[in-house]
């Protein structure tokens, strides 16, 4: 299967690593022969229509930026859009940085891939948060697959769990801790009694939070995930503007201490049920399976027959997210193989 990788940051690099590692095993066990034919980044691309060998991928990774400096395969200044339009491939893996203002350039990357008949795997929440109903419609119209399991829960298979493992059951509501950074901050505050600002600084030191932390602490990241869950699992055609959102900036130490006295704590909970989808700091009992510490994510599905099901896992990380990409690629490969021709 020929793959165009768009975006070469932490996740992009991890994807090439995951694809290159134990190559023979993938072919033998899954009949999956991933060939990266192009990598496009902001300042150019590398293209090899026959596919880069695992060794070559490693060389590219070690040389670093700009990737287009490669003497043999480098294409300086070639844009990602041009690569998607002109390079032959089955799948585009879109892992550029998130932009929740207008979702670009990822949105154009994805629609162009669809138009040119390429399946898409993405870990980018931006396009999904702003245009998920549109993208699912466009993928169906162009008869291509669109997978994005890395957007929710990183490597933890939250979307697949609901879609596949709970198939046939009716999911009535979803609640969860969908952002690791804020969960780390709230855990620090309640367990070590530090202020919000101190906890945030710690998170930044440890690399859990960005220098510009708004995406996490104002609840945007969690809200994006709520949009994805609502569309994909509960068939609600919503976008980011439909989510009522409150971040964790105003959660005080005092409030946390008072909650502790009641045997509870405060978590940033994303919630979808009959009403308006929300993201807001919510008090939950410490005995609630959702009540996980540190950077963990946890999601509870409330189902009609199987009751409450909770999935817990690390919600971010390059290799973790790359594993989700691999899962999606295998899924597409399986779907293509079994598709009646």
């Amino acid at each position, binding site marked *: 299967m020929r793959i165009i990788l768009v975006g070469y940051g932490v996740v992009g690099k991890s994807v090439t690593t995951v694809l290159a590692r134990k190559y023979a095993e993938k072919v033998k066990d899954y009949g999956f022969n991933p060939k990266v034919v192009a990598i496009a980044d902001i300042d150019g691309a590398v293209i090899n229509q026959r596919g880069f060998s695992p060794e070559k991928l490693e060389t590219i990774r070690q040389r670093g930026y700009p990737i287009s400096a490669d003497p043999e395969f480098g294409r300086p200044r070639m844009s990602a859009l041009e690569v998607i339009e002109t390079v032959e491939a089955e799948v585009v893996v879109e892992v550029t940085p998130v932009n929740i203002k207008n979702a670009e350039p990822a949105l154009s990357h994805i*629609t162009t891939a669809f*138009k040119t008949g390429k399946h898409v795997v993405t870990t980018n929440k931006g396009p999904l948060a702003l245009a998920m109903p*549109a993208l699912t*419609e*466009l993928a169906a119209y162009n008869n291509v697959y669109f997978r994005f399991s890395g957007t929710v829960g990183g490597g933890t298979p939250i979307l697949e769990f609901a879609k596949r493992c709970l198939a046939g059951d009716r999911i009535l509501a979803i609640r969860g801790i969908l952002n690791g950074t804020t969960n780390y901050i709230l855990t620090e505050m309640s367990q070590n009694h530090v202020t919000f600002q101190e906890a945030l600084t710690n998170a930044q030191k440890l690399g859990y939070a960005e220098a510009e932390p708004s995406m996490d602490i104002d609840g945007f990241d969690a809200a994006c995930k709520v949009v994805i869950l609502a569309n994909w699992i509960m068939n609600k055609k919503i976008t980011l503007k439909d989510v009522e959102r409150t971040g964790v900036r105003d959660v005080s130490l005092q409030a946390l201490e008072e909650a502790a006295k009641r045997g509870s704590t405060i978590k940033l909970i994303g919630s979808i049920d009959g009403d308006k989808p929300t993201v807001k700091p919510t008090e939950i009992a410490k005995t609630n399976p959702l009540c996980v510490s540190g950077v963990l994510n946890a999601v509870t599905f409330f189902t009609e027959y199987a009751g409450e099901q909770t999935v817990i896992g690390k919600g971010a990380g390059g290799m973790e997210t790359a594993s989700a990409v691999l899962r999606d690629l295998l899924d597409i490969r399986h779907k293509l193989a079994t598709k009646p021709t």
Partner: protein
Amino acid sequence: MKKIVMKFGGTSVGTGENIRHVAELVAHYARNDCKVAVVVSALAGVTNQLVDIAEQAKKGDEKKMQAFTKELAERHVTAISKAILNKQLQKETEKVVTSTISELNKVLTGICYVGELTPKSRDYVLSFGERLSAPIVCGALKDSKFEAQFFTGKDAGIVTDSNFGEADPLMDYTAHRIRLTILPLLEKGVIPVVTGFIAADQDGVVTTLGRGGSDYTATVLGVALAADEVWIWTDVDGIMTTDPKIIPSAKKLPRLSYQEAAEMAIFGAKAMHPRALEPVIKAGIPVRIRSVFHPDNEGTLITKEPEIKPTEVVKAVALIKDVAMLNVSGGGMVGAPGSYAKVLEVLGKNDINVMMISTAVSEANMSLVVRRSLLSRALSTLEIALLGRGLVSEVTAEDDVCVIAVMGANMQGTLGVASRLFTTVARAGVNIRMIAQGSSELNISFVVKEKDGETAVRAIHEEFKLDKA
């Protein structure tokens, strides 16, 4: 503040004076607490002329083509001079129209030289009607001191499949794009003027929406903008109980359900095509059909729920002329699976649309209604394909018939409607040739001799007290 999408049909924008009137109407609502998005058709008759000239161009008739574009330019320039008073605006609008016509000229010349008219190039030619009318409406609005901006369906962001001539919008993708192009303007108080009927596929190639046309654009826009109502401005006061030409006491129907309105499609241009209703049905947005000439009349409101208290089971009765009836019979059809399918397949393959079907449980014959203009072709193709093969022994036709359709959602589950209906028809001395009623029970259609048509409609209209509505 209410958000309203207003669509104006060809007659509403037929002349410069009419366009000025349209601009005044829009201005009135824009001044009175409404945010208005406008959808316009081509000037009356222009789309048909474009269809004709495209065919002429294919035959290589360059002279006719040149004469046509010249005339078209003159008509639009005259309209500009009547619709817009401000000289500067006149000039600007003329510039747009002139350059659009020169583009049309190039397209037609291309067709002349290639001698080929594909569905794709045909849609391109057809798109010019609206592309010429929208800037004039936009100019007239600016003349009334409103900020306005015109868009082609393509620029507005209406994305369809590539089924040229009958393209279907990709609704979610379209909504996403319209929210980026039109919505911000509307919220700022600018009046967007969008060409009806035309759109583009995902590669930006111009498509047309086909059946439903500009009404379809209006409802798509209504859904994408989450409008409070979609208004279809036309030259009649609304949907009537029957054709006022037959029965002068025909009344306007104040309210209809979506389902009923869809059944009324056979009222032709005076109603809405069911296809155009689809987007609003899903979103539950009301549609109002009203007259530009009587703007104080509220028109017909089409909503999810029909009016609260049903007075009569029958709401409207239509007379459909220009039809013909075919009877296909043969003992070989009895008990033979697929025999009806064969008849319909032959007609379908020859592009003959079947309007009505009736078969008896005896299976020995099948009656069909088709447009009268298609009768001889239908008859001939059926004979060639089916006679002498043991299945069908005879195909006969009657072309002196008409269809009467009786509609109303409350017929559903009401006992005795058919009995009352057919008793009425019998009392009027009219013989019924063929009957069809689907299990939805929203509509009973039957065929009578053409000369009896009006008598039957009059009797039904009276019996169900439609003039008292």
